[in-house]
């Protein structure tokens, strides 16, 4: 599979490079970003199961909270934000 062809995505206002075919979680981990969310008790969380089961890698993607980044492909210009569970009160 072709994993060449890089593009930029935005993470908390910073730009990182992602490769076509990578999930958002993979792009973040490839750039050394591992803490992706903080819980209601302000504990850091990151990718754990890597296969869509544990829901730990949830982030805000293009304004939508609770998106499993391990199951979502990175796309050019997508905007990803670290999720703070204590500030998410309802789903938009």
């Amino acid at each position, binding site marked *: 599979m072709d994993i060449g062809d890089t593009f930029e995505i935005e993470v908390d206002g910073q730009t990182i490079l992602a490769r076509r075919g990578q999930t958002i979680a993979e792009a973040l981990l490839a750039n050394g970003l591992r803490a992706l969310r903080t819980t209601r008790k302000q*504990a850091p969380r990151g990718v754990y199961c890597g*296969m869509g089961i*544990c829901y730990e890698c949830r982030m805000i993607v293009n304004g939508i909270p609770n998106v499993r980044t391990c199951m979502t492909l990175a796309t050019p210009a997508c905007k990803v934000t670290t999720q703070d569970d204590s500030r998410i009160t309802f789903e938009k």
Partner: protein
Amino acid sequence: MREFELIIIGGGPAGITAATEAARMGACVALIDENQHLGGKVFGPTGNTIPDSTSDKIEHNLRRQILKDLDRVGDKIAVYLNTEVWDIVDQRMALLYAKEGSAGHLKHIKGKKLIISVGAFEKAIPFPGWTLPGVFSVGGLNALIKKGILPGERFLIAGSGPLQLVLADHLIHAGAKISAIVNAASLRDIAARAFQLITSIDAFRLRSGVEYLWHIKRQKVPIYSSYIISKVYGSNEVEKAEIVRVDGLWNPIRGTEQEISVDTLAYGFGLIPCTDLTRLCGCKHFFDERLGYWRVELNEKMETTVPGIFAAGDGLTIKGYSAAIEEGRVAAIEACNQLERVDRREADRLLRPSLRKLKRFKRIGQIMDTISSPRPGIFNILTDDAIVCRCEEVSVQDVVSAVADGAGDVNDIKRRTRLGMGHCQGRFCGQVINELIWKLTGIRKQREIFTPRTPAKPVPFACLAGE
């Protein structure tokens, strides 16, 4: 609503083979997977960094072959990717949620027969610190490495099971530093099973196993047998791990703790079948004490206790892709017989080779599972500060308080503490909550499992409203 003769949920080796087989017999098939690709965890896309071990080559060829076979009958199969099944109504209708960015907007599909082949996930026992970023499941980290991503610098592999060796080999090929491999099983346990294993597994697997061990030895990776991980330290990410020696029942032995400086941990005790959909359908399940997990009850033709609902692959018992392929085939042939696409005599003729192969796979699976299955002493690493339910942040201490307040069973603990109510729907805490309650109350009651609820996976509210 579109109607099909056969709906297959899960597009791994079992689901792909089932779809191909059923389409060949002329059935109208829907194949659903929540990923963006078919192939599941083993046959999913990889990067360009796959090492050339014997197993990897065989996997690669097999993957190409089953996808090619599927493609030949592809016009008879509707494939729904990026799509979750969040409910199954009347044991025939699958309610779908097509995730953002996927093409299909279909909400419901109906099938006369159903094959559930949703695979497996990691078996894990909580320990203090296991929620820190940098702790991965063994399978999850392995998938990342296969795609060419190294999410750390100094790795520790802990737990048990054959996947440890596969991951270690992939890490070595990727140029990573493995600080240690920590295996809960004792050398004696492994040696006791070695003969059984050698005489039952395929030659290529044996060869791969030897290759893995050779690579690990050449890298001088320290291996700790009869050790488990007891704690991980770090403020925002993993910075250090503590391991401890265990006895034959995996009880931690005080005073044998050692610290290892690592930033990434792979942790797991083998795999367990994913049973949420078969449970939601009302199929009968039982807890297999020897294998250490809940299993769906089946007849030898892969049919569950609900007529017309079949199951196949690692969602039943953990045997790997070769067995999954045969089980998928058996389920499809039997479903097609019920659909009158193939008569009984021809079906039996087609079933024979697969049923014969499956007998052997069953034996291998049992040997693997009994080596990796956690022994009771390990529950002693569940100290008060360990988080049991990751989603709702319920600690052992919270469960202790609930039990002190009179909670006596699993669903009672769930109501009082929210344990098991979070996003993952109790898939991880459900693995240990019985043992924890037994330990705290001193009474070994009958084992329970959370009542299956709709939606099986979290979906947006609009989905439930049916809009």
